[in-house]
């Protein structure tokens, strides 16, 4: 029985916020990819809250990159929020901390992102 991605959605100050939690690895990253691409296809701005993510691998990061690229092409906003240390380490190695808008909190919506 495949594990489910731990995920919750809400509208927060006019923004679609996706709260991710647990371990985002090869077992669940295709589920993340599908969810993100659906939102982008639905023309929704996306704020992805990584606060509860204890682990993310390259396949999880690849899903984020794919959604980010499509969102940007469609003129949609896309940002990460509350990136924990472990995930930040991975983003830095991939030099994505310079590419993704990263917000300290979700309360400010997209802020300057």
């Amino acid at each position, binding site marked *: 029985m495949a594990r489910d991605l731990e995920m919750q959605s809400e509208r927060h100050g006019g923004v679609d916020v996706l709260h991710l939690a647990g371990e985002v690895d090869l077992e669940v990253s295709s589920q993340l990819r599908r969810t993100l691409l659906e939102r982008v296809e639905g023309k929704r701005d996306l704020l992805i809250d990584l606060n509860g993510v204890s682990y993310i*691998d390259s396949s999880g990061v690849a899903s984020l990159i794919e959604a980010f690229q499509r969102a940007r092409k469609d003129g949609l906003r896309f940002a990460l929020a509350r990136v924990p240390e472990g995930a930040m380490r991975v983003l830095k190695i991939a030099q994505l901390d310079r590419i993704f808008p990263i917000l300290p909190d979700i309360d400010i919506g997209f802020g300057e992102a």
Partner: protein
Amino acid sequence: MTGGRDVVRSGDSESDEMVCELRVHALPARLRLIRRVVGEAARELDCSPGVVEGLVSAVDEACQNIIRYAYKGDPKGVILLRIERAGDNAVIRLIDYAEPVDPAGIQPRPLDELRPGGLGTHLIQAAADSVEFEPPTQGAGNILKLVKRIE
């Protein structure tokens, strides 16, 4: 299967120590277990939290590559993970029984070229002091060896 002693023998020198060998099928659902084992074994070797985190990530990424490229998704494939101390180093071997891989074909993407794939190799390289394929022995297809100084 042969008796246990020669398979996980202690190393040659005093400071060498076998921590464990884990054998699992090459399935995404096994990556959690693999991460737990690497994490606990690296802690037992007195690796710092940062080194533990890097090794967990590196082994996970290398196993993903075995699952996806070496076995091409075949769930019957087997991965053997072996963790030991050799002197001041943690030495981790990932053994598969797939067709031999051409190391020249393993191409990480340049990091300034933004696309979804090609990051695993970077995470492996970032965590280990050395990463190399060893000549396969005893029916193995590929042996990937990661070495990281214990600190």
